[in-house]
């Protein structure tokens, strides 16, 4: 039961990270398209800027759970390294609880923001006037998944099956 939960969460984080990678590629390609249209054809570019900004931003948020999974977020590990094993374990658990707290707080905050944008039909104040909830959707999704990833992290740290070691 716990095992399949851990697997499912890890799988989700990876799947969303692949999506994030694709969004980065899309962002890069559209930047080039925009430069090309303007430099070569002197043609107006209308939607590109919004697209580029929002895909890249989405990629950053969507990548966060994967980066937690693969220990890519930097932390201060001095005390963790110097401390005795049991202290390390306790610190690790406290750290994960605090991380979980942040993830939950941001899930709530970003859901409020997303919901407001959705019901009020907010748009961007740019010429493309993109429906704002679309670029905002990655926020609650990412933070909810980050919450799950932290629960998984906590389970691993408490049960001692933390195979990754300290944060680099």
């Amino acid at each position: 039961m716990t095992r399949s939960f851990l697997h499912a969460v890890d799988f989700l984080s990876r799947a969303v990270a692949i999506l994030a990678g694709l969004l980065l590629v899309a962002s890069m390609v559209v930047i080039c398209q925009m430069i090309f249209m303007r430099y070569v054809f002197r043609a107006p570019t209308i939607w590109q800027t919004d697209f580029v900004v929002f895909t890249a931003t989405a990629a950053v948020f969507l990548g966060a759970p994967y980066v937690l999974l693969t220990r890519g977020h930097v932390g201060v590990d001095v005390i963790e390294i110097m401390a005795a094993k049991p202290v390390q374990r306790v610190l690790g658990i406290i750290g994960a609880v605090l991380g979980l707290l942040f993830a939950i707080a941001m899930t709530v905050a970003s859901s409020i923001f997303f919901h407001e944008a959705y019901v009020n039909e907010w748009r961007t104040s740019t010429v493309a006037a993109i429906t704002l909830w679309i670029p905002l959707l990655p926020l609650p999704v990412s933070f909810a998944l980050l919450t799950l990833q932290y629960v998984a992290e906590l389970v691993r740290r408490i049960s001692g099956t933390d195979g990754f070691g300290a944060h680099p």
Partner: protein
Amino acid sequence: MTLSPTTSGLVVIGILFALLATGMPIAFALGLTAIFGLLMASGWGVFEVLAETMFAGIANLAYVSIPMFVLMGAAVAATPAGRDLYEALDRWLNRVPGGLVLSNIGACAIFAGMTGSSPATCAAIGKMGIPEMLKRGYPASVATGSICAGGTLGILIPPSVTMIVYGIATETSIGRLFLAGVMPGLMLTAMFMAWSLYDCSRKGFRFDDRGTRFSFSQKLEALPKVLPFLIIILGTLYVLYGGVATPSEAAGAGAFLTLGVVIVMYRLFRPKPVFEIFSSTLRESVMIMMIMASAELFAFALSSLFITQTVAASIAGLDVNRWVLMAIINLFLLVAGMFLPPVAIIVMSAPLLYPIIVSSGFDPYWFAVILTINMEIGLITPPVGLNLFVVNAIAPQVPTAQVLKGALPYVLLMIGGIVVLSIFPGIVTWLPDTVMGPVK
């Protein structure tokens, strides 16, 4: 709750340190502390603006260039290009005493021209450089220290992630900031090289070329291998300064060009290496930008609690000579750099320091370089030093104490560099003034 700004400042800093001490990710520690601070300042209503602050903090066209400049580095690092560059330099510098350490630092400087990130530079060159130096008997402290320090050039020699963040925070021209970093970057490169040579000989290491000798034709053969680097650097420069695109957009074109060159010249058609490139790009840029987004929240909390304004007023109220002021600012940046990554410091302090700098008669472009060198130092000082982490991962057999001992002289060199640039600010301003005309 009405605490004085000083008290609430101490509370916030205390919470931050306590959270950091658990080893939790810096991004989330900053964010959680910010939420505490905001609850103190404005109550639960603040939940209605949290997400927007974080989102708007990074949803910016100029910031799109950060993952793009990281991608450039990751793409090259995934190929044997680093090894080729390194070999070419080695063949040419082989007879020079200490040629290998020169190749290392030189390769770092060239690689820095293609990525906006210091850890990426450190990793790409260090992977080849450290084992090779250790193999040829260089002192371990020199091998690791020179790579740690050489890697920091990634954010000084353009493109640079920190310059982009500074440019947005202070509304200065990113193109001009990039140019400002070139000469100081070359100066530090030369200083690093000179010190490494001296340090090797001081430690009784004997340079000799009894190893392989390269014939002139072998040397020539190595040159085409530098070609991809030239294409990428010149191509990106052309897009940046040739009227093709704005600096924010140039990064995208640079990343595209780099991927193209890397895939074609190194025949990187298999999905696995391409997957690796994006995985490492994602990991590093998410790490950087989550820290930025949280730093936005943190800066918002500090301002809401009136801490920022109190600090700014007390700095401005210091009735001291402007160079004393500059020394205080440098000290602050050095201490902050020990604990926090560069982007976090710039997001939080640039808007605070910029008006003070300008009103004291300092050139904001010159200050950007001074700030960046401080941030470079932070990358190789404990407890949080991104380059230290990278080197530790590459050469786990070298004890951390050795790495630190090797890196320390470079810290002093960089402080020396700051002094030199303070005496001769022309080193910073000459290139941008020549290319873009004198500043306002």
